[in-house]
């Protein structure tokens, strides 16, 4: 039975929480494991709904328009844009920063909220991570086309070229190249790693051969083995630990594009955290804009509950207020610093020709999110949806204000101007929404949009120590399968005894019994990682962390060495009066490489220690075993185990509570 006895007098004296402070459940209506995988997987299975087509066709049209505009730009030249002296950074940089910012919510939800043990993240992290990847793709387009000759963009990478010079790493542009590409790669890895167990679920549910093959291919032979889960969870934790500073660094580095300059309005020390807060703010705005309709259209209101929406509203409130703090500080220090140019810039921002943009920004980013103080607003989906759109608008205008207002009044009035975008600017930007939505809609139809395994691990039935962890089939969801056929004596070599269990509490106590009986070659298979199972099985701590540590150290050292070699040794070039080499300017790139190789180490370590990919696993032959990614728990004791004896082992497993024990074959 579950062990949830009170521990101490302090616990005994602690009162039950009063009803108004009860925590709401993360999945409503006590849904079962089977219900969760059925419901979530259904979005990517079956017939394509009409609303999907209704959204997909216009999105594709917009996307095509985006590419047409880009084609026109590249074939004609940057003159088709509105950028001109003095505002030489226009829509392209605004949109780049905007989309990169949108991309911050995914990693925040998957990494930072994971480290903060915010279990509600499980319902939204997958979609937000997918959104991150697509948003970074949209963002990546803009610097590429902004360089003018897009076909020369490969010069940005430290590759020997015909000019025999190296990229120079004192430029924030180089930091961006490394930050954004690292961010994209690590986000993709993180997203894919989170997907592996769910792809296995899709594989085991697949009705057609082609689906089974493709999902199986990408699931890498995942079985839900607890020895795998143990390494997997460690790798996940390490990736979360790496992604947290990464997500902070990316927008910080984007902010350095502005703040390391000397331009009034750009050069201010609070930019890095201010940009990060703004990015998280805008990212959550976009997550809400997308998920409020999606949860309704896909029938997922019981998984993405109003509580989730409410919590995201609170994150918006917090980050919006931080952004407000930064606005205020900028103004105050512009005064306090006593620099007349700085003061002019800020006065001009608020009351100059672009004052309208400034006040849109302040209204949407600071004032309107304050409505989230009220629970009535936070729980009113229409209101939240509207406010989330305000956030998107406000954050786009924030970048507009920063980029354009700081540039349009140069130090000499002869260099003043007014920036207006052309239709190519506007249509390219609008077109990126088409690209973004197209990718997002494809994502909805092909992969589970909610992390199935993770949601299962946060419902009460998933916790073996919870009273509900030992309750069987709360709501009968799937019809009972026919009992396992008596295994016929085939010529095939036996692999071991495979016992099936129904609840998380059962499997945990069974694992303890098997361990205490002294077996060595055995494993537990579960649809999601079970709390305390490693201890129950007596597994030692996973070694994935070391792979990552070695990767990280290698990345840092190679970054520093590379920059020293290129900018100080092989082709010394003085830039901006800065030293030829300094660990200060070399830090951003070295840091990004630390994270990149650390993440490679974590994922490679996870695959190596788990001996994956392994597409042909004898267990896949067992018909019942397909439910391991759905709602059943298994123990396999291999024949190779020295203590294995068919009768005794079977007795042990049956005594541990299994109702079905079968002989699995090689």
């Amino acid at each position, binding site marked *: 039975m579950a062990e*949830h006895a009170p*521990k*101490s*007098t*302090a*616990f005994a*004296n*602690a*009162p*039950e*929480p*009063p*009803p*108004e*402070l*009860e*925590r*709401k*459940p993360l999945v409503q209506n*006590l849904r079962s494991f089977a219900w969760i995988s059925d419901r979530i997987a259904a979005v990517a299975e079956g017939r394509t709904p009409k609303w999907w087509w209704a959204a997909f066709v216009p999105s594709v049209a917009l996307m095509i328009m985006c590419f047409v505009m880009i084609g026109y730009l590249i074939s004609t030249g940057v003159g088709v844009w509105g950028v001109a002296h003095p505002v030489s950074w226009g829509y392209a940089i605004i949109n780049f920063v905007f989309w990169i910012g949108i991309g911050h919510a995914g990693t925040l939800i998957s990494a930072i909220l994971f*480290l903060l043990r915010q279990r509600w993240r499980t319902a939204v992290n997958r979609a937000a991570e997918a959104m991150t990847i697509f948003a970074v793709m949209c963002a990546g387009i803009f610097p590429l086309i902004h360089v003018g000759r897009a076909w020369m963009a490969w010069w940005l990478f430290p590759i020997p070229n015909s000019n025999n010079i190296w990229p120079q790493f004192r430029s924030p542009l180089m930091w961006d190249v490394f930050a954004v590409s690292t961010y994209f790669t690590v986000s993709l890895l993180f997203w894919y790693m989170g997907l592996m167990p769910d792809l296995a679920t899709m594989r085991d549910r697949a009705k057609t051969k082609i689906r089974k093959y493709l999902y199986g291919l990408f699931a890498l032979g995942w079985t839900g083995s607890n020895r795998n889960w143990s390494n997997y969870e460690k790798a996940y*934790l390490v990736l979360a630990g790496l992604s947290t*500073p990464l997500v*902070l660094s990316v927008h*910080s580095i984007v902010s*350095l594009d502005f*703040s*390391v*300059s*000397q331009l009034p309005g750009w*050069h201010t*020390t*609070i*930019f*890095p*955290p201010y940009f990060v807060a703004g990015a998280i703010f805008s990212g959550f705005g976009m997550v809400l804009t997308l998920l409020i309709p999606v949860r309704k259209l896909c029938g997922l209101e019981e998984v993405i509950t109003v509580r989730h929406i409410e919590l995201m509203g609170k994150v918006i409130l*917090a980050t919006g*207020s931080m952004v407000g703090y*930064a606005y*205020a*500080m*900028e103004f105050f*220090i512009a*005064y*306090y*610093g*006593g620099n*007349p140019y700085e003061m002019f810039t800020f006065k001009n921002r608020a009351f100059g020709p672009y004052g309208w943009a400034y006040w849109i920004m302040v209204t949407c980013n600071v004032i309107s999110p304050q409505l989230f103080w009220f629970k009535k607003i936070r729980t009113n989906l229409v209101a939240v949806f509207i406010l989330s759109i305000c956030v998107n608008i406000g954050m786009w205008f924030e970048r507009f204000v920063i980029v354009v207002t700081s540039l349009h009044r140069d130090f000499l009035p002869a260099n003043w101007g007014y920036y207006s975008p052309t239709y190519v600017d506007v249509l390219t930007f609008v077109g990126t929404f088409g690209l973004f939505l197209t990718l997002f809609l494809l994502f909805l139809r092909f992969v589970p949009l909610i992390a199935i395994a993770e949601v299962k691990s946060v419902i*009460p039935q998933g916790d073996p*120590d*919870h*009273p*509900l962890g030992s*309750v069987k089939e*709360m709501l009968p969801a799937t019809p009972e399968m026919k009992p396992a056929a008596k295994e016929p004596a085939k010529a095939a070599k036996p692999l071991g005894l495979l016992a099936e269990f129904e609840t998380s509490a059962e499997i945990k106590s069974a694992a303890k019994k098997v361990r205490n009986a002294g077996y060595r070659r055995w494993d537990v298979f579960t649809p999601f990682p079970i*709390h305390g199972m490693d201890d129950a099985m007596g597994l030692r701590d996973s070694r994935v962390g070391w792979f990552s540590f070695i990767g990280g150290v290698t990345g840092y050292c190679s970054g520093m060495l590379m920059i020293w070699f290129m900018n100080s040794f092989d082709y010394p070039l003085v830039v*901006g*009066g800065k030293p030829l080499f300094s660990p200060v*300017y070399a*830090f951003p790139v070295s840091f990004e490489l630390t994270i990149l190789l650390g993440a490679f180490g974590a994922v490679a370590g996870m695959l190596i220690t788990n001996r994956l990919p392994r597409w042909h696993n004898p267990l896949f032959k067992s018909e019942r075993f397909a439910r391991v990614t759905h709602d059943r728990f298994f123990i396999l004791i291999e024949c190779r185990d020295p203590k294995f004896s068919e009768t005794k082992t079977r007795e042990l497993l049956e005594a541990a509570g299994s109702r079905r024990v079968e002989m699995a074959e090689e």
Partner: protein
Amino acid sequence: MNTELGNASAVVSRWTKVPAVLMVLGGVGAVAGFAMDPRQLGFSYLLAFMFFLSLCMGGMFLVMVHHLFDADWSVPVRRISEHLACLSAVMAVLFVPLALLAPQIYAWMDPAHADHALHAKAGYLNAPFFYARAVIFFAVWIFLSWRLRYWSLKQDESGAAACTFKMRKLAAAGIFLFAITLTLAAIDWMKSLQHQWFSTMYGVYYFSGSVWLTLGTVYLVAVWLKRAGPLRDLVQPRHLKDVGVVLFAFTVFYAYIHFAQYFIIWNANMPEETFWYVMRERGYWWGSSMVLVFGHFLLPFLLLLRIDAKLKLPLMVPLCVWVWLMHFVDISFNVLPPLHLEEFPWRWTDLACFAFIGGVTGFVFLRSLARHPVYPLKDPRLRESLSDHEVPPPAIAEAVHSHEGEE
């Protein structure tokens, strides 16, 4: 009701003499120092004051964030932060000598000090407004911290949810006031030592170091009270681990903030900003800058990196003491260079003032610990904090019972 539970008076009373002695010795030293060199004493006093103000600010932040997040893990150690936050009152009293010494410390207060940069900000940096702001800061801090503790203590008796809601509301409004007052206080009392210099990050910078110091302190106090008895059952390894994790997070956060500030100034290379760091890259200050890089960040970072490190007391206790030392260096790095640019920066008066303010605040803190229950006895989240899993709401518990009945 178990009266022994959470009562720290017996444990604490054994130690109250220590801060009292420190207070007396430090006080005598400070008076002697004042007689010898009032300007030196002013800087020493400011250094110690800003150090202990960090504890008060950090405590207030932890309490408010606890309420805003509706957290459960920090319930057993919340009272420690509440007491730290309530040091605001004694800090206000301790500000009086600083207010009197201010003309010795802040160059801009000298009417003879002619400076264009000062002229531009005279509307903000002038003596009457400076004192008025200090009064406002302390009024805000005292109000917030004492009200938060008041409702928390009320809840010890009733366990009412209404208290939680009161605290949550206070925290919601408070976090704004806190952000503004802390920032301006850091600007007024530390940054204006070199009034020509400016940085929008400065408030966040002082904040990050303050919370870091407070987390180290909370860890130490929690370990002490756990070992001595009053928190034995309450502070479980996972609570200590969580404090350690947040300490780790703030180790990184502080480094991030300070590096960002330095990096942006270094790159833009504008003399109106760089002079502040150039001063701090000379002589002994070069050494203390390096101590900050390696001691404030790298060493704690590497030591705390492993998950299990946060529970190893032989590592954590010295590390938390180290946190105190590093924060002292950090505040010195901000405060002392205008006074001692080339020579060794610290004087015996620094120790005397540190002992004095540390003694006073320590005495008040210990007395608060002894007087009140040492953890929130009836906090609605306490049960959740002490149990291994999320406590099922009664609705679910009922469903389980009815289900079990069927079987």
